[in-house]
């Protein structure tokens, strides 16, 4: 479980996060949504420990990040998996080497043990035939699946995804969303996804945190987001014609 209490983050005069508090539960897929510039990426980077909030605290299963020493922080980070927006695969390594990388860095496993584990997670993301390919030879969807495999290979407790289905076609995006959701269930991990894709919200949003101008504007789930009257949320959700129609149908049904 990740507990965020009143975090503030500024860059110079720009006050990006203005006191966000929320909780992300274990075994659930949580989505942080909001418009571009709402502070989602800064929020995620604070959760990852890449940015340090000036105020407030973030605790991971009771361990407050700012109170840990550098070794403890390093250990905590090795329990985190991250799927970057652009996949961030190491382009000098094959897909197999990319997936084995966290094992090489943090475990004392033999080469064959590492290969077995990497093989297992690559099968899990349905990439059993791509071991020796370079990242540049893989499609966008494949790269995302490799990034997921690399993020889960060392059995993390926390999985973070920054817009994991951006730049993908709708069908592949659904495959990626489902994969993340299944992995969250299977490994019972705390998963947080940054997104502005409403399809993802409908598909896997067990918990949704809506950010607006660096503040938490709303919190709920995929079931409640279409029922809320919060104007900030409805403005965002019903900006597309499709969701406007869904909303209309819902209101007509209610009448």
């Amino acid at each position, binding site marked *: 479980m990740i507990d965020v209490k009143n975090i503030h983050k500024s860059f110079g005069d720009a006050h990006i996060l203005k006191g966000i508090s929320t909780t992300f539960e274990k075994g659930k897929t949580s989505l942080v949504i909001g418009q571009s510039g709402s502070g989602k990426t800064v929020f995620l980077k604070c959760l*990852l*420990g*890449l940015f340090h909030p000036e105020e407030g605290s973030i605790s991971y299963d009771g361990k407050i990040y700012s109170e840990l020493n*550098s070794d403890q*922080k*390093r*250990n*905590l*980070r*090795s329990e*985190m998996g*991250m799927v*970057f*927006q*652009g996949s*961030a*695969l*190491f*382009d000098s390594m094959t897909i197999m080497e990319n997936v084995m*990388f*966290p094992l*090489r*860095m*943090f475990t004392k496993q033999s080469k064959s043990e590492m290969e077995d584990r990497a093989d297992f997670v690559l099968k899990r993301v349905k990439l059993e035939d791509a071991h020796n390919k370079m990242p540049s030879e893989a499609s966008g969807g494949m790269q995302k699946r490799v990034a997921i495999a690399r993020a889960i290979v060392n059995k993390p407790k926390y999985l*973070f995804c920054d817009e994991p289905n951006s730049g993908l076609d709708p069908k592949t995006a659904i495959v990626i969303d489902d994969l993340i959701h299944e992995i969250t269930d299977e490994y019972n991990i705390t998963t947080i996804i940054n997104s502005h894709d409403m399809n993802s919200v409908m598909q896997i949003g067990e918990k949704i945190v809506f950010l607006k101008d660096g503040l938490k504007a709303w919190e709920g789930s995929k079931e409640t987001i279409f029922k809320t009257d919060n104007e900030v949320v409805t403005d965002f959700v019903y900006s597309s014609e499709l969701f406007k129609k869904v909303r209309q149908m819902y209101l007509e049904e209610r009448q």
Partner: protein
Amino acid sequence: MTYLHNIGAYFIMIKDMFRKPTKWSVMRILIFKDIDDLIIGSLGIVAFISFFVGGVVTIQTALNITSPLIPKYLVGFATRQSIILEFAPTFISIVMAGKVGSFITSSIGTMRVTEQIDALEVMGINAINYLVFPKFIALMLYPFVISIAMFLGIMGGMAACIYGGFSTLDDYIIGIQMDFIPFHITYAFIKTFVFAFVLATIPSFHGYFMKGGALEVGKASTTSFVWTSVTIILLNYILTQLLLS
């Protein structure tokens, strides 16, 4: 203020380069890869430039000796001194700032742009140690490159001298052996080690701390070349003053 900030950030990067070392089994592979990219990969261009510039130094020296009172062996002597003292350690380092420096900046800069450095940091890896330290160790073999540059420069001079008919082989060999001061070699290698450190760290700094996209990677490579060259020239002056005067 920006300059001061950057100088401070550079020295903090140097300190971080030695902190939280990467696992030796991983680091060993990175070092061998960087030796291949930075040292072995540079031998061809260094050999080519050294041989022909050695020849040019010889021709220029020979053509400027017009007095019949000046002995012909002076051509070999002047070539040796120019190559050992300045051409091999300094001129080749400027060439390497362009070749190796821009490679380091663009490869690390691209990793920054594509979030690969963020990926390393998220995993709890000291990205500066992982990326910069192997380059620093690989470039400790840089004196080997400079030794080859010295040898080929003198050989190029010899070829130009004989085939251009500027002096005889005997005169040239007497010239390159005359008044040899072993400390000049020590001086050249001290400079080489210092320049190797500069070549590993300044381009890494410009790549690691760059911001932006593909265009900025190109700009960072150019800036890195300028600052590496300026630093090498300044340090060359300071070291020459300290060691030879």
